[in-house]
């Protein structure tokens, strides 16, 4: 499971900053997670154990397909599409 973003205080830790300098930040259900390396959308959804049929992924406000490579500077958001009741 990807790691949650460090709290602001933790960013003063040099080790953490070096490790996560190139992490992809992913917004999912109101929380920001960090993925430690460049990944494709397909791999990202696998890491979060999410269905490709039930989720969309946007990078910088634009929807992207499963083969799209996510970069550290991208603003990535996972969008749940299933609702019900």
């Amino acid at each position, binding site marked *: 499971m990807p790691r949650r973003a460090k709290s602001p205080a933790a960013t003063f830790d040099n080790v953490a900053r070096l490790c996560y300098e190139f992490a992809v930040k992913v917004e999912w259900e109101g929380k920001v997670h960090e993925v430690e390396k460049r990944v494709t959308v397909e791999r990202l959804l696998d890491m979060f154990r999410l269905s490709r049929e039930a989720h969309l992924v946007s990078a910088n406000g634009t929807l992207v397909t499963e083969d799209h490579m996510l970069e550290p500077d991208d603003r990535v958001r996972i*969008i*749940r599409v299933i609702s019900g009741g």
Partner: protein
Amino acid sequence: MKCRVCGKQANIRLPQYNTALCSEDFTLFFEKRVATTIRKYRLIGEEEKTLVAVSGGKDSLSLWRLLNGLGISADGIYIDLGIHEYSRVSFEKTKAMAESLRRTLYSFSLPDAFTKGIKDLSGIMRRPPCSLCGMIKRYVMNRACIEHGYSVLATGHNLDDEASALLGNLLHWKEEYLWKKGVSLDAEGAHLARKVKPLFLCSEKETAAYAVMTGIDYVYEECPYSVGAKTLLYKGLLNRAEEESPTTKLVFMKGYLKRVRQGGLTKDEREPKSLCGACGYPSYAELCSFCRLMERFGTTDTLSFSIHTHSPS
């Protein structure tokens, strides 16, 4: 992955159609698909007054805008379930869409009618919130159609909604419900408006993608009372099957429609034959479920029924 139409970078892959499309071409594809569904199944005739059931979610807001974009003049109806912030935000987004479309919006408020929201009513009536909500919505929206002269009620039910509901009914062999899962339900007499589902063949992922791509501001949060709903379980099961075998959901529902067309599934004889003694709408008993609720919890005027009209400013 490139767009199958224009060759630009694709924004969505559609394994069920063995294709991938960019935002512009997907938007056109989606709108054409809905227009084709409306034409093929004769859902909405020319000049027919149409009311859209709007919740503030991606499906209903997309449908409302799309219908008006297709030249079908459709107004909306919203039901405030009294779920605090969730209802407030939903209503705001619905009103914003009504303003942008310059269409009339009708609204009915549970807290105004019963002094209670859906959760409290559900507890008192010992009926699950989703079941009670469905009953209230069906009644209010149908009655709004009849009283305001709309011949068609359009809902945002999509492929996933219909496939999961059908799966649930099949798993529990609720044969009495099987006939009514089609693209449309005919009007009956002067008391039941025709109900149509123009998004019937569009998956939930497609509808969400359309809403995102066209910038529709919808309520992203899930209804708090849908947690643990069986519908979500069935949708999950169907999506697992769809990932392994694309077109599963489409084949499932198209097969269903074929059986309905061939007469394999017919209307349940237990459908109401009488009319409610209070409101005059179809009922199984002397009083319909809604009037029983009103009789028990109606506030100032028992069996009063108040739908507010919001005209575009």
